[in-house]
């Protein structure tokens, strides 16, 4: 996750329509795009030209905040890698290997973790002592290059990272890639459903939802508390536990719940810089994955808490904690982020820096265990007491 940097506002680089199109792309379309790139290279080779691979530049300088769409995205700067360049040759080779491997996954209906991709492709080159990949970072980098080159997410390349996050609530899913298993996430016990890394429509279909909103919860402890209090049933809520920073699959699911089913998304985190940033990544996307915000972000999400106002309203002063110097530094950086430049957030951040306090979700237990489920959340949602 990128953590710092100010974002400039530039002209929009993708339209809502094009995002919708991207959203629905399945393995066939993606495979075709890979093939197209490979064909270009072959053509160049056949015409005695230096084969090229073009990808988007991902440095800070190319990250922009699209105000219209409300997401962090990549600008249009690109980088070209050529084979006949002593500094690029190895990288070029690795890229073609990753292209060929993901093409094979997509056309043979296989999926793999990024670590598996690494092991599948690692081998000694010819009669040399050199390996195609020396460590996983090299293959990971090529996967990212390819994602950016064909403007999609790795999940659509049938490749994924480690999953994280749980789903609980009255929502019926169908696993299209696995016997068409159909299940309701309210009936899986208190553990809920483990969100997968690849949450693409052609893999996991959202069949039916009976809920009024989605509640995203930062800490596992709070998620468990709400399940135990039967919050989902009583409030017709879908609970999504992120367990810290939200994984790609979890973000993709939140995105889909909002865009496919028009559910409002409320984010519930600790009242500190780390919690705020988790919220901002869910809402606007991250700088590291700026190119994928259109498929991962949920610009209409709202922040439910914890806020400093909560501290005052519920008299939680004695259960706040002191901000560490790094927290204060982080808060200061966030003040400058384009997407925090609105009055309520500026006030919140400044206040926190002034009081030098932070407040955890669990602090609400100071009132009582049930307080958060019976009073705090329902009241806030009913009164629409959110931060934008």
């Amino acid at each position, binding site marked *: 996750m990128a953590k710092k940097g100010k974002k400039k506002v530039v002209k929009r680089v993708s339209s809502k329509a094009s995002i919708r199109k991207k959203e629905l792309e399945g393995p066939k379309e993606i495979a075709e795009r*890979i*093939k197209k790139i*490979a*064909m270009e*290279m*072959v053509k160049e*080779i*056949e015409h*005695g*030209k*230096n*084969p090229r691979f073009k990808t988007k530049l991902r440095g800070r300088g190319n990250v922009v905040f699209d105000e219209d769409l409300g997401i962090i995205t990549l600008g249009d700067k690109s980088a070209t890698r050529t*084979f*006949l360049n*002593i500094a690029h*040759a*190895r990288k*070029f*080779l690795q890229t*073609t*290997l990753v*292209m*060929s491997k993901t*093409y*094979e996954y997509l056309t043979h209906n296989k999926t793999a973790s990024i670590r598996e991709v690494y092991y599948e492709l690692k081998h000694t*080159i*010819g009669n*040399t002592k*050199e390996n*195609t990949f020396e460590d996983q970072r090299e293959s990971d980098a090529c996967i990212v290059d390819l994602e950016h080159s064909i403007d999609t997410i790795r999940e659509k390349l049938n490749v994924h990272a480690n999953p994280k996050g749980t789903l609980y609530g009255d929502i019926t899913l169908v696993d299209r890639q696995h016997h068409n298993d159909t299940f309701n996430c309210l009936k899986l016990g208190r553990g809920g459903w483990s969100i997968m890394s690849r949450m693409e429509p052609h893999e996991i279909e959202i069949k039916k939802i009976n809920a009024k909103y989605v509640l995203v919860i930062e800490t596992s402890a709070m998620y468990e508390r709400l399940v135990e209090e039967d919050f989902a049933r009583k409030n017709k809520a879908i609970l999504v536990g992120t367990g810290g920073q939200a994984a790609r699959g979890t973000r993709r699911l939140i995105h889909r719940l909002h865009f496919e089913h028009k559910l409002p998304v409320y984010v519930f985190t600790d009242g500190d810089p780390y919690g705020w940033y988790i919220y901002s990544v869910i809402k606007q996307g991250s700088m590291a994955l700026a190119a994928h915000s259109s498929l991962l972000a949920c610009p209409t999400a709202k922040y439910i808490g914890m806020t400093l106002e909560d501290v005052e309203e519920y008299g939680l002063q004695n259960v706040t904690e002191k901000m560490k110097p790094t927290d204060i530094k982080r808060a200061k950086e966030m003040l400058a982020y384009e997407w925090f430049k609105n009055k309520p957030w500026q006030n919140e951040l400044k206040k926190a820096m002034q009081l030098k306090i932070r407040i955890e979700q669990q602090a609400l237990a100071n009132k009582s265990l049930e307080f958060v489920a019976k009073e705090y959340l329902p009241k806030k949602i009913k009164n629409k007491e959110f931060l934008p």
Partner: protein
Amino acid sequence: MKKKVKKTIVTGDVLAKEFKEHSVAEFFKKNRQMLGLYGKVRTLTTVVHEYVTNSLDACEEAGILPEIEIKLDELGPEYYQITIKDNGPGLTKDTVGKALGQLLAGTKFHRLMQMRGQQGIGASGCTMLSQMTTGKAIKVISGTGKGKAFACEISIDPKKNEPQIYNMRDLDRKFRGLMIQAKFKGVLYRESAMGPLEYLRRTAIANPHAKIIFRSPKGEKIIFNRTTTYIPKPPKPMKPHPAGVTVDDVITMAHHTKAQKVSSFLKNDFERIGDTAIAQIQKLVSFDLNKDPRKLTWSEAEQIVNAFKKIKFIAPSADGLRPIGEARIRKSLESIVQPEYVYTLTRPPKVYAGGYPFQVEIGIAYGGKAGITTENNQAKEDENQGVKVEIMRFANRAPLLFDAGNCAITKAVHSIDWKRYGIRDLENVPLTIFVNFISVHVPYTGAGKQAIADEDEIMEELRLALMMCARKTARYISAKRAEIEKKMKRDMFYKYIPEVAEALSKITKKDKNKLIKKLEWLVLNKLKLEKPEEKKVKRLKPKQKGE
């Protein structure tokens, strides 16, 4: 040269006195260090040196192309026998005793010319050493090519410093040359940089007209063939130059001169002294130069030397110097060192310390088998792994194997910024540096006579000559390096090509081999790299046209 004269003669005088009181053997033992006979390995090398030098000098004087065979046998622990045979002029029954059985009897000691055998003990010294360590006489076979050859055994009477000849007998065959067999204890054979083999190797390099055959104690036969049939002319004896003499030299020379007056003594026995100089000297000394030189006193001689210092003389003539020559050094290095590249340089004569002419010859051998193999294999460039610089020092063609650290040649080599010449690290480079220092008087740093003193003019000249050679070598190295880089570049692309071709062919279903060929063509043509081998070129070209 002058110092040389002085030393020898004075030593001779002292010796003569000492003989009366002590035995020669005792003197020998006392002076072993000075004679280069310390250290088990070094002693054996010195013995080999003495015999080989004698043979080379004898052949040179007689105008014969030398062929020298040296055999070492291990008779027991630290006990060796050396057998040396040459094709030189040989010794007669009359001369053999003096040449091999009397210390300091050689005529060479009194001459002023460029000589190989300035250090050491001479062949008689070896006889003495053999006798002292084993109690045995040396065996000799000699012949002049005319009449019958003869054989005998020789030892030295240590009290009288006289040869003792036993078993003198004629042989029933003709033979030209000299063969000596001697036994030594307390010596050791090693194939190190200071051992006899390395000594012979270097001797062969500096004497390309000699064929040297060596049979090691291990039973190996190593032959260093001659690379030229040109026999160097014997060096000319030279008169001392006034700028390079000491008071002692003047006294000694004055006492031996044939001249009747000091003035004519100075004119006849020194170089570059004429009437003008005599007139100048007369003004500077307090006595009459018409005096009998045999009656010259120490203080008068001192006045003369002081006068020499105040007068400007023409630099001494370099006629006495006998360089090996650029072409011959080149051939020799090519044959014996077997490098990829050689550059040689013989500089014009120069003068040091005001009066001693000297000349420097450099040979730089790079790549191939140049350099010394080391244990350390951690070189950065794989081409140079485990090889470091080899500095071959010579004084008048005689290898200097010991005391390298104190030598002007070593110092000059290390004072040069080799990085400027494309040599990043002398410890990791296939480089052999040959330096022959030629002078009628080599300024050795110590009694061991294995290191040349770092006189300013000598250092300057050595550095200049080395840098001139280094510049030439640098050109070769950079061209070679560019070649290697090109090859590495090409190899790297070639290595990746099959992988790229396979990946792309898997996606596009295009023929993999066609892609490989086209990519190879691209690499060679776009990057201007040479093809790895002829055949591939031919196969590729037509296709290229067909496109």
